[in-house]
Every structure is written in C-alpha cells, then in structure tokens.
C-alpha cells in the first residue's frame, strides 16, 4: 500500500479563537482541517469548565506538509501564544496515498 510522509499538527486553544485560527491555517496553506470539541480540562491557566463559550476549548487537527506545518506553528506562536491559552504540537506521520483519479473513458 503506497504511503506518503506528512505532518499531523494538533492545536488546542480557546473556543473564541476558532475563526482566527481557521483564518490563520487557511492562509498558511492548509488544504483542510478537523475540529473537535474539548469537553473540559485543567492547566496552568486554571480549569476550563466548558460551561460558557468564553470558557470552552477546541482541538484542531491538520495533516499538512512539513513546510506548511512549520508556517502554521510560527503563526500560532506569533498570533495566539502571547495572549491566549494554546497548546500546539506535531507528529510525523505516514498517510495513505490517494489512488490517482482514473481518466474518464
């Protein structure tokens, strides 16, 4: 089975930053993303109970090339890190290649 090398970027941040983060990754060249709700959690900024919007978090998953991953993480550091609760990390992964589209007969 043909596999391709790629990077899985995971970003967990505040719910109110969702539009900002979406804008950021689209500009950085991401082709798509998945968003998951994060129920609640605890960290050095205190607990996030998830009860009201300003108190909720979400998780964004992206599968991108190494260069796009680097750009995204740089932008997250520049735009979100100073003022918001954010956790970002990456894994090197292998993604199943898409079968090349069959030319129409």
């Amino acid at each position, binding site marked *: 089975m043909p596999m391709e090398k790629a990077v899985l970027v995971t970003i967990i941040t*505040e*719910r*109110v*930053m969702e*539009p*900002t983060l979406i804008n950021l990754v689209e500009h950085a060249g991401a082709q798509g993303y998945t968003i998951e709700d994060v129920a609640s959690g605890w960290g050095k900024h*205190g607990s996030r*109970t*998830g*009860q*009201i*919007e*300003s*108190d909720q978090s979400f998780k964004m998953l992206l599968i991108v090339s190494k260069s796009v991953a680097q750009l995204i993480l740089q932008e997250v550091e520049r735009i979100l890190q100073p*003022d*918001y609760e954010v956790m970002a990390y990456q894994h090197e992964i292998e993604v199943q290649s898409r079968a090349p589209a069959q030319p129409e007969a």
Partner: protein
Amino acid sequence: MVDHTLLDAIGHNLTAPMPLFFALGILATLLRSELKVPDALYIGLTLYLLGAIGLHGGAEIREVGITAIWMPIVACFLLGSLIPIAGYFILRYMGKFSIHDSAAIAGHYGSVSAVTFAVATQFLSSLQVKPEGYLSAFLAILEPTGVVVGILLARIALQVEVRQQGELAGAVKSRAGWIRPVLHEALTGTGSIILLGALAIGYISGPDGIAVTKPFFGDLFKGVLCLFMLEMGLVAGRRLAEVKAVGAFLIAFAICMPIIDGTIGVLVGGFVGLSVGGATMLGVMAASASYIAAPAAMRISIPEANPSFYLTASLGITFPFNIAMGIPLYFWLAKILFGS
C-alpha cells in the same frame, strides 16, 4: 397592584420557583453533586427563552408602533453607553485596576443579561404588574452597546497613555483594535441571531403569531426558565469559589454598581414615561451584567484582561444579587417613585 414594602417584595421574590431553582444549582455545586444540565439541552433552553422573549417583544412593537417608543430607545442607548464609561472610571481610578481589566469589566456592566430580564418579567407578572411588552427589544440594543463601548474605552485609554508616557506604540498595541470580529460576533452570535430574528418574526406575524405559538412559547416559559436557572446556579456556584480571590473592591463594585445603575435605570424609565413595570424592567436591564456574550467578546478583543475578574464579578456576584435582591429592589423603587 398589591401594596408591598421592600421586605415583602424581597420575600415574595425569594419564594418564587426561579430563584429557588437557582439556589438549588448553587447548593448542588457546593455539595459537589454530579448534577449536570447537558450542553445540548442548555443551548436548546437558550434558544427557547430568547425565541419566546423576542416573539413577544416583536408583536408588542407592532401593536404600539415604532414611533411611539423612540424616546425609551434613545434613553436605553444612552444608558448602555454611559454605564460602562462610569464603571470604567470607578474601576480604574478608585479600584486601581489596569486599563484592560477596567474596560473589560465595565463593558460587562454596560451589556445586559437576558435571563435576569426573564426572571424579572415573571416576578412582575406574579404581582399582576404588566410592563411594556416591547422592552425586550432593548435587550438587543443594550447587549452589543455595552461591549462595544467597553472595547472603545480600552482603545482610547491605551492611546492616551501612549501619548502621555511616550511608550513605544508597538508595546501596548493591543487586540483592542479587533472591533470588527466583535461586531460580527455581537450581531450574528447564537443569542443575537435568535433574539433579533424572533423580534422580526414577532413583528411580522403580530398577535396571531403569538396566539398560534402560545402553547409552546407561552405556557411552558416558566418551567423552562426554572431549568435554565438551575443550570445558571451550577455555573455561578463554581464561580463562588473564586470570589475571595478577586478582592474586596471588586466584590463591593459588583454589588453597588447594579444598585446605582438600577436606580438610574428606574429614574430614566419613569422620566421617559414608562409604567411602574416598565421602569422596573429598565432598571433591571441597566443593573444586569452580561455573562455570555460579553465574556466571549472581551476575550477576543481585550485578551490582556483577566477573565476571572469579569466572570466572577458578573456571574458570581452581580447575577445572584440581582436575582435575589435587585429585582424586588428596583420594583420597590419604581413603585415609590412613580406608582400612583
């Protein structure tokens, strides 16, 4: 109208089911109960309450005509702008809070709590007092006004400080510039869309629209509000633990500010010709502080402000105060000032 002293009014309020469900929520949190209102139900209850409030308001505006209510609308707009400005100066110069914290907290007090509004309408209806029904439209005016004024205050104060101290503009360049996403959020967020939409639907469909939706949006309202208050008690209960940490000044502010704002609201309501019930409601709106729309908007626009200050003040102190004491107090004031 039944004759009531202030103590009677408070007693009458505290034995109504809504404040009691709220107290149950707080108690459950203190007992570390596992009681929880599921997220999806909470959102559903919000949609229901704002939908019902909006429908009624819209139908009532149609009944009286927009031209008849321009005075209260202007008064309401002024209240929404002046309350956060006053709050800002109190917090900044008496409370010695930072520019960011002062502006963010003040914005919450300029904005409004729809749930406090709903509880107040039930309190009045239990006393057979009927406020002007179109007042719910003012929720839609007050909610964004307070938030936007709060953000503008932060922006202006930061620019003044830069000029005075000659600091590097870049060093204080805050996200207070982010007013466009906030306006977008304020007008298209879940709460605003459903409230503005229901107002429009109520206006278009009129009394007939109210009649056909009454079994759902009318008869069930009190029960739904009880469940919502239970959830609010659970949320506010968690904030109570943080009350000690915010300091004596903010605690005093979160109790005195609604009393002052509420009194001004009642006075303004009376002067623009609202009934006793209407003046009470304007007092309640002026006194209440937002805890859903404003925290989200402030987090985006003034991230330097500490959320635990504004959430604890508005949700942990002012909201319970208004539910227990504030509503009967503003009613009592309206009655002795403007009751015949």
